[in-house]
């Protein structure tokens, strides 16, 4: 055994078709968690326009909200937040040792619920914007 071969990280994203529910839940939770952190900074940036005065803030908000892409991003943000919260509750249950045998089902449930809530929110977010 003079030498051996290191295959490195084999379960990379090239194998995504083989990932199980728990693995997907983990990936999505990381992703959504960091997306929310990212949003926090843009959120602060927008809010701090109020420092210059009320008009600056109103103009910033109105300018942003008139953009179609911002509305789409808002829907995305909602989806990300809802999934993170629902799956976060699932993880809390897992930490408490409750319903470990249903961990895959609860992941699918959070996905479905996220989808429903997101779709239901679309009319509200898209109200009064033109492409």
């Amino acid at each position, binding site marked *: 055994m003079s030498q051996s071969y290191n295959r490195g990280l084999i379960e990379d994203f090239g194998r995504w078709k083989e990932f199980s529910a728990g*693995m997907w839940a*983990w990936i999505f939770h990381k992703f959504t968690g960091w997306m929310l952190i990212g949003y926090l900074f843009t959120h602060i940036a927008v809010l701090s326009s109020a420092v210059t005065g009320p008009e600056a803030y109103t103009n910033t908000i109105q300018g942003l909200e008139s953009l179609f892409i911002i509305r789409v991003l808002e829907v995305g943000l909602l989806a990300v937040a809802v999934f993170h919260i629902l799956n976060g509750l699932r993880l809390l249950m897992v930490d408490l040792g409750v319903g470990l045998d249903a961990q895959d089902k609860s992941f699918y449930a959070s996905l479905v619920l996220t989808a429903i809530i997101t779709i239901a929110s679309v009319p509200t977010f898209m109200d009064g914007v033109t492409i």
Partner: protein
Amino acid sequence: MSTQQQKPETQESPDDSEMNGTESPQQERLEKKERSMVDERSADESDLEGDTVHIKVFRYDPEVADKQEPRFDDFHVPFKKGMTVLDAVMYARDTYDSSLTFRHSCRQAVCGSDAFFVNGKQRLGCKTQISELQQPVRIEPLPHQEVVKDLVVDMDHFYDQMHAVEPYFKDEDTPDASDLEEQRQSRENREKVKMSTRCIWCASCMSSCNIAAGDNEYLGPAAINKAYRFAMDDREGDEIKEHRLRILEQEHGVWRCQTQFSCTEVCPKDIPLTEHIQELKREAVKKNLKFW
């Protein structure tokens, strides 16, 4: 071997009757696992009868010039009813290429030496029916471990982690031999540790865990489960249990687990690894909580 075909239940958990009546989560999980296995099998073996199975086997040998660069070799093995992945690679070795190297011994899921990465999942070669799998069947060495030759991986690190939790019974006040006193364990306590005692050191769980892959010092599911087996045993004293929890709650102990359930999915002995790790996390928290 072929009895497993019709009645998968009898293969793995002969003493599940002990648990009858009490519908535990673990039992439900086992039932689910079995059901999904039966589904896969309904692809039906009779379709395969008289056929050949196409397997692709990972090859590597640092001492042979044309095998220094890893590659896959194809073998076509005649199918027999009840054939396992291990049977197939053994046939390939005995018939086509005697240099094909892999570990095996008991052929009945006891020794834990033939865990391979089969069609993208850690499985025991001797416990996996070829008829369950999609062809060509890709057989690779366990991921995240150094490959020594073909399907043989270096297990040293895994064994080091297993030994790190001091996996043996310790008791500061073992009864005097002259007393000839028994150290009794209650039935309930035996049930509690039952699943955790079944580990066969195959390293499937460790190999499936992508936290363990990224953190070489992480104890890993098998070692933590080993510690659980002793920490939860009533016969060990409180002091020893404290000592075990101290090992487990270190930086690379239980807290690395992020509940992906990968280990629980692959364990060939159906040990509820995530459940055990989570329970030890709670034990560690309880030990450190002080309200004064």
